């Protein structure tokens, strides 16, 4: 049994960006997977709006999880190559809005592409036929289809070249303003985190070692190591106990 996380509480407010930073293996992506219930810890709690996601049945959990969406780092791998862009965008509707007609699905897919500044001409294409930037835009479009409140960006810009990184970052900021989204931005790039985020939390070995507003975070770093306590005044979440964690993936 491995204790993967201890006393982690995230305060995320509407329209704000919270960056999670830390070295590889610090638990950033695993934390995101736990929030989305993609991993099942053997103990502890994952509290969202005061309700423990782990204690809920799948049916009871789903409406809460619809508030979340995720964009992964490697869009080439995160989009099923056997599906066309149209199939990828239509699938969430097939599952979560069953009554919707095919024409309506197509219209919504086109709207989603327009939102991320992509032409509807790519709808019949396979993700393999798109550039890295286009694929990441499709991944963002898919994530936004069901109007989540919180978008988790798991190293979503890392695999892109600098120019495309800038374009996608601007797009994300626009989408945030337009849709009132909140982001959990997972990255090891502190410079990009301080550009995009309102608050930054640094993880190490599953524990929060620093946290604070982005503007002061880099200044704190330059001043030397000063471990800060985890946030305790939770609005959406409350700190949970130590999470003993085993997973066959680790």
């Amino acid at each position, binding site marked *: 049994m491995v204790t993967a996380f201890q006393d982690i509480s995230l305060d995320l407010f509407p329209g704000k960006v919270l960056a999670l930073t830390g070295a590889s293996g610090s638990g950033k992506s695993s934390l995101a997977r736990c929030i989305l219930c*993609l991993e099942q810890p053997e103990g502890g709690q994952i509290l969202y709006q005061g309700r423990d996601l782990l204690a809920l049945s799948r049916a009871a959990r789903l409406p809460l*999880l619809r508030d979340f969406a995720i964009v992964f780092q490697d869009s080439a791998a995160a*989009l*099923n190559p*056997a599906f066309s862009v149209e199939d990828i965008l239509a699938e969430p509707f097939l*599952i979560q809005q069953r009554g919707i007609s095919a024409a309506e699905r197509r219209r919504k897919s086109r709207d989603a592409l327009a939102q991320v500044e992509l032409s509807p001409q790519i709808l019949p294409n396979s993700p*393999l036929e798109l550039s890295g930037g286009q694929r990441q835009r499709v991944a963002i479009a898919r994530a936004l289809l069901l109007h989540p409140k919180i978008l988790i960006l798991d190293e979503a810009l890392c695999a892109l070249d600098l120019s495309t990184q800038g374009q996608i970052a601007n797009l994300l900021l626009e989408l945030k303003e337009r849709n009132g989204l909140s982001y959990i931005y997972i990255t090891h790039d502190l410079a990009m985190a301080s550009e995009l985020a309102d608050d930054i939390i640094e993880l190490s070995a599953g524990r929060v070692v620093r946290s604070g507003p982005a503007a002061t975070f880099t200044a704190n770093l330059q001043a030397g190591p000063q471990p800060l306590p985890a946030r305790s005044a939770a609005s959406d979440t409350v700190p949970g106990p130590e999470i003993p964690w085993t997973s066959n993936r680790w």
Partner: protein
Amino acid sequence: MVRTGQRLLHSLLLLAGVSLFSFVLLSVAPGNFFDELRLNPQISPQTVASLEQQYGVNRSFPVRYAHWLGSIANGSLGYSLLYRCDVGSLILPRARNTLVLTTAATLFAWILALLWGILEALHRGKWLDRLGGACTSLLLAIPDLLLGLILLALAARVTRLPAFGDGLGGAFGSPPAANAGLVSHLFLPVLALTLSVLPVLVRHVRSAMIAALDAPFVQAAHAHGIPAWRVLLRHALPAALNSLLSLLGFSIGGLLSMSLLTEVILGWPGLGPLVLEAMFARDTYVVMAAVMLSAVFLIFGNLVADLFLYWNDPRIRVVSA
């Protein structure tokens, strides 16, 4: 279209190469069919020499090879010195029997392996997976020969299942489905063959499914709230099929050659016993026909696997385009 033509041409060249290589190997092997006659004091050396002359076994290699190619063209596939008839009329009913056996066994093995392997992958690391792993290890550890003998002993002592023959009484032309005896005669050989190929298939299916279930797009589908059954059937299974289709090609390719030992032990009148007898007797053309039929199936299996892969894997289609 061009690629298909190239593949077909490549297949024909491969067949020509296999035929030449096999013919060379059989020719350089010491002795021939008539060597045993020389040991019989009642047959004079002149008679043996006359028979060798009559059946052309002492002719040069190119002449014999050309003669054999001619027999391929007219469908006789050569002449069997052991059975005194055309190889074609001898081998085709036996090949049909082998195909009945191996097709049934392959079908059962794949269906079981897919269910078993997927179940193990979904319960990775849990007791069901460990139990399944132990069962496949046990099956892998039992040699085919021992498995056949165990089933033969069980058939003889415990069940009333027939342990020899095809239940058709040699009536090769009768429709198999019309003969109830065929099913009971098939049971043991199909079981033996299924159990011998099953563990390898299960392990491949399990590992392919685990790799597919760990694929980022499958994780992404879970994260977007797609139900587990749909993620399994629409995302993970098609992704796992890519590696399994190549294995299916080998299964199809091995349809004529996989059951030799099982047929011999359990007395199934397929190609196995015939080829074994022909090899011991140095009945060259029977062996050649069996080798060529196996090669045709192997090439056909690979072609089918390639076509399935093209259909299933969009990456190949994108590269081709």
